[in-house]
């Protein structure tokens, strides 16, 4: 379809009104345009201004033309911006667009505007005039301020949530590990999210005489519900550990408490390793009970590493009567043991592959002699290497007996 001048609707009837309807009056088009027009000398002096802009400013033409400069129309802060950004940029580029500033009206009110300017030059290329278009930006500015406010609000809210999660997490983990005579201990907690409390936990604490208790585990789920369970587990284990010397008995007690607490609702349970350790000659003896948890890694002074499987041990809190499996391990000088949660061993290494316990064992063999802090450092490097593959929280707890050389030193 074509559309020539002859197709203008109703042209025949316009008659005498034609010049007006065809916008023949450039003067009127300039003066009453829906935006402000401003022409200034290179030094900013206003030489021409349209009626629209004068109306916004609430000023008379005679009081402005030849008497005021563009920066005079701005707020003081806007004037600094004009002198330090607008004017230099305009001089360098010859044009400038979309600069947000505020006009100050004769009545003292602020009028947000957007300025777009071009420089016209004389035959020798010297700047002669600056033409500026002024757009009313009151609505846009209100919208932007709303956006800024919403952004600030969201940032504050996020900070608050993260602070809360951090604080809560700290109450679920020991602030510092105690010193265990004759042993080196180290722990690490890697949260997968800053906004949520993780479901991993560990602790290390004195029992009777020279025996120490410790545990590390993982609650199903995360967030505030997991935090409730974690708190219950921590206090139950510490309480039971005091009167029951049998690690399997401690886990049975925990199983009863968890099963009863959450029976019938969303099932809440955990996998956990609970153990006690005491000095034995120049080394230490550890008794470890497993409730469905990933196997600990035992690292020997000569650099060999093995997984301590406690097969048949069931997770804690899911069944009325759960079975737990116990093993005894002797740590000689220079030996170490690492307990960890499955944030590490469930880290993805490919579309259909995951970092496994065996991978971890192989990675850690060769640390000779292994120390608690050395093991944690090595796993930390591993976590950094796995990067985004680590989607879950990861808790690590390592204990080691100093080697004979370092023990004497």
């Amino acid at each position, binding site marked *: 379809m074509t559309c020539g001048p002859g197709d203008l609707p109703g042209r025949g009837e316009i008659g005498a009104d034609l010049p007006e309807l065809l916008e023949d009056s450039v003067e009127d088009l300039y003066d009453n345009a829906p935006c402000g027009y401003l022409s200034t000398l290179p030094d900013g002096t206003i030489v021409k201004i349209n009626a629209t802009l004068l109306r916004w400013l609430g000023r008379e033409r005679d009081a402005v033309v030849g008497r005021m400069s563009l920066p005079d129309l701005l707020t003081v802060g806007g004037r600094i911006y004009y002198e330090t950004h607008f004017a230099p940029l305009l001089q360098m580029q010859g044009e400038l667009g979309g600069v947000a500033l505020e006009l100050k009206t004769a009545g003292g009110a602020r009028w947000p505007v957007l300025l777009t300017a071009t420089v016209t030059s004389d035959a020798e290329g010297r700047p002669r005039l600056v033409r500026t278009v002024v757009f009313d930006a009151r609505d846009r500015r209100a919208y932007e301020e709303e956006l800024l406010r919403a952004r600030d609000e969201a940032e504050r809210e996020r900070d608050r949530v993260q602070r809360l999660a951090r604080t809560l997490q700290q109450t679920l983990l020991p602030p510092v590990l105690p010193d265990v005579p004759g042993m080196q201990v180290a722990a690490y907690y890697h949260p997968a999210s800053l906004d949520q409390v993780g479901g991993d936990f560990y602790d290390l604490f004195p029992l009777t005489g020279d025996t120490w208790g410790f545990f590390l585990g993982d609650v*199903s789920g995360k967030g505030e519900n997991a935090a409730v369970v974690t708190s219950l587990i921590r206090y139950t284990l510490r309480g039971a550990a005091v009167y029951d010397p049998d690690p399997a008995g401690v886990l049975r007690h925990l199983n009863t408490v968890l099963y009863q607490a959450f029976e019938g609702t969303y099932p809440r349970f955990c*996998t956990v390793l609970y153990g006690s350790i005491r000095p034995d000659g120049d080394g230490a003896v550890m008794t470890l009970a497993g409730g469905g948890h990933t196997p600990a890694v035992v690292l020997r002074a000569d650099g060999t590493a093995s997984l301590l499987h406690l097969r048949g041990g069931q*997770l804690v809190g*899911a069944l009325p009567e759960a079975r737990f499996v116990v093993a005894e391990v002797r740590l000689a000088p220079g030996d170490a043991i690492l307990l960890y949660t499955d944030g590490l061993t469930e880290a993805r290494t490919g579309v259909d592959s995951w970092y496994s316990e065996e991978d971890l064992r192989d990675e850690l063999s060769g640390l000779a002699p292994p120390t608690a802090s050395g093991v944690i450092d090595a796993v930390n490097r591993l976590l950094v290497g796995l990067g985004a593959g680590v989607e879950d929280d990861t808790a690590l707890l390592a204990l080691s007996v100093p080697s004979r050389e370092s023990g004497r030193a």
Partner: protein
Amino acid sequence: MSDDAFSVSLHQVETGVVLAVRGDLDAYTSPQLLEKIGGISLVRGQVLVVDLSGTRFCDSSGISAFVAARNLAATAHAGIVLAAVPRQILRVLGMVGLDSLFTISPSVQDALSAHRAGSG
């Protein structure tokens, strides 16, 4: 990350219910499975078959859904079978000591016919 969006679907069959899981079972998806399980009704002698052929991964929160399904079946005196269980999930079930709680079957068909043979 899995390309497949997570989904759970329920099919009533003559001898019970087939629950088909598609996608990874983790802390974010397991609540959906739990919700579906909560809506299942079984009667004595029926079987609940959980079809895991469409999933590859399951963490501890996925295990909680399996336990919930097992408890539901036990309450109704119905059976429960995990069908087409991928290697990784078998491994996790073994780790948490729950492999003995479930009957494991190579496929949904095998599970249903074994159940018919057993109860018939």
